[in-house]
């Protein structure tokens, strides 16, 4: 192979006659992987070795040893050389765009950033934006984003960013949980929490049947307001249940706007206990018989729990 004439590629064939899943390699694969392994064996730390690991990763992004070798080469060559580390970050972005589902990329990038003398969140924002634009719920990309937020200690872009995503798709659970992650890490003021509740109410009015937003609302009360559900939120919620929790018998002709709202209100009444327990039971009965019958057993279990306590 050009530039590697002095290296004999290690063979890929095992010679076993009862090999399983034998693969018909392309010549390119044999050459690239065989040569890279030979370089790895002799621990060559050179520009050409780094270049070759890039070609290996292109062909086999899951080749974990190749990632490790590349990082070793980089650390040998860079020794704090910002230019080289920046080039590496650019190379990673390119691989990322070609392999959006590969998760090895993210931990590799974290390792490079940890070894960079002047890493920057600003540099990471465009690629994060691009990746999440393409796949708004990509778990690994969101995890990397949260890692960055903590690593750089910079929460300033996050609320605005999740707002823009929720504008696009109010059902985006990753955006809602990201928002909660930000709040939990930034100890918001009481006023901020109240503002947040207003924001959530707006999103509920837009689409009441959305589990992510109701969970988020409960999270606000539990994490910041000691789970003190006020009358106002009950009133707000009951506009989506049309008050069916008040009725001892479920009226099969009454439709509601959100089973999540009914579950929310049931939870709140169960917490209040006493005379309110009856309303919780009514709500769970409604869920079991009409509004969410697939989870009938769960709702009945909840009825037996609130009845006991």
């Amino acid at each position: 192979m050009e530039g590697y004439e002095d290296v004999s590629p290690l063979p890929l064939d095992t010679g076993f006659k009862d090999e399983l899943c034998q693969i018909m390699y392309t010549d390119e694969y044999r050459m690239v992987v065989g040569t890279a392994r030979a370089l790895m064996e002799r621990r060559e730390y050179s520009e050409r070795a780094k270049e070759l690991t890039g070609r290996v990763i292109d062909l086999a992004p899951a080749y974990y040893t190749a990632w490790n070798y590349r990082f070793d080469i980089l650390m040998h060559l860079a020794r704090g050389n910002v230019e080289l580390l920046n080039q590496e970050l650019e190379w990673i972005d390119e691989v990322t765009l070609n392999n959006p589902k590969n998760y090895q990329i993210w931990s590799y990038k974290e390792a490079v950033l940890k070894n960079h003398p002047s890493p920057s969140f600003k540099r990471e924002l465009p690629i994060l934006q691009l990746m999440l634009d393409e796949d708004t719920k990509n778990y690994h990309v969101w995890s990397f984003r949260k890692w960055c937020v903590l690593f750089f200690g910079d929460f300033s872009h996050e609320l605005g960013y999740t707002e823009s995503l929720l504008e696009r798709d109010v059902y985006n659970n990753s955006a809602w949980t990201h928002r909660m992650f930000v709040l939990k890490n930034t100890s918001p003021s009481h006023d901020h929490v109240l503002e947040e509740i207003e924001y959530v109410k707006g999103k509920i009015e837009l689409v009441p049947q959305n589990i992510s937003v109701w969970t988020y609302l409960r999270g606000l009360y539990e994490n910041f307001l000691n789970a003190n559900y006020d009358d106002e939120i009950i009133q707000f919620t009951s506009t989506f249940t049309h008050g069916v929790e008040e009725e001892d018998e479920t009226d099969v002709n009454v439709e509601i706007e959100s089973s999540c709202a009914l579950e929310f209100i049931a939870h709140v009444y169960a917490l209040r206990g006493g005379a309110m327990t009856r309303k919780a039971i009514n709500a769970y009965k409604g869920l079991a018989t009409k509004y969410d019958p697939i989870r009938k057993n769960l709702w009945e279990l909840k009825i037996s729990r609130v009845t006991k306590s």
Partner: protein
Amino acid sequence: MSTSLESTKHVKFLKRHLLMLPSSQQSHDVNRIAIIFYSIVGLSALGVDCSREYASSIPYIYQHYVKLQIPGYEEVFSGFVGSLATNVSNTSCISLPNTLFALLTLRIMKCDEFFQKTVDRESLGNFIRKCQYPDGSFASVLDMNKPTPSPVDSTDLRFCYIAAAILRLLGCETKEDFEEFIDVDRVIDYMMTKKCDFGGFGDYGETHAGYTSCALCAFQLLHGLDKLDSEFKERTVDWLLHRQVSNSGTVLLQEGKNPYYDPEENGGFQGRENKFADTCYAFWCLNSLKILDENEFNNVCRAGLAQDYLLTKTQNNLIGGFSKNDEDDPDLYHTCLGIAVLQLMNGTFDGIFCIPKQFAP
């Protein structure tokens, strides 16, 4: 539409994956042991006696068991490499997932002799020990130049589960047995940091059914389930049951609005809130549920909706196999997990190790 399991077609589909693969598969070369594992699990769950049919390939699998030293260090490690073609003689290419997959394959192949004589418990245990970080988490591979976790690998709940499962296969039973190789309290502390507000486990607060299953299996293996308080367990059961997609009641209001809602997926399970159902998440959710609440698990199974969803929507009755949803082509991973969850619901499958019950420890 078919309502019964197309076993014959699935067997054919799975067997094809163990034969010569086209070059389009070469990117999976490095995890070939995983391909073998998914195929063998699927086949054995369908009643194929793999220990007979693939007996002649056992020496080939043994070849993936590698004992090694890192240049400049005394200690010995052992484990399985994902593929012989990507192994390098003086470099640690063994990984935790490939090690678990190979050991489970060998159990299905009834290679008792491997577990009794061939395996070197000390060096394999040492590999797992050195993959553990001080915070309790695990990387899946070692660094190539020193006996520490690879700096470029991720650490997540999968590897906690895999480490615990491997040690169980090596005979660890009590907490003290595990302590010989890993710091059990720290694994548990680490997993506790991955709990989410409304039940389940995930990274930074977003619950994920796959991670939830891994965490619960690890808690179970390490005898740590009682460390989870009852409220958290209840919330987790709640969360899991809510992952079943439904086409009846108020949820139907999402039709045409929520881009990730499809009433046709009634009975299927999603991996997170507001996502489409997916064959593999039926396994991850139901396996988690079974660990936490056998009764609710049985209720879901008895209702039959999950089974109907899998058999009529994601089973391919032309070429065999299961796909992730009702649109994609079938693939090996979803075929394995589709069969696995059906047999889990039948009571013949061990969800903790993801192999038929008869082969589980």
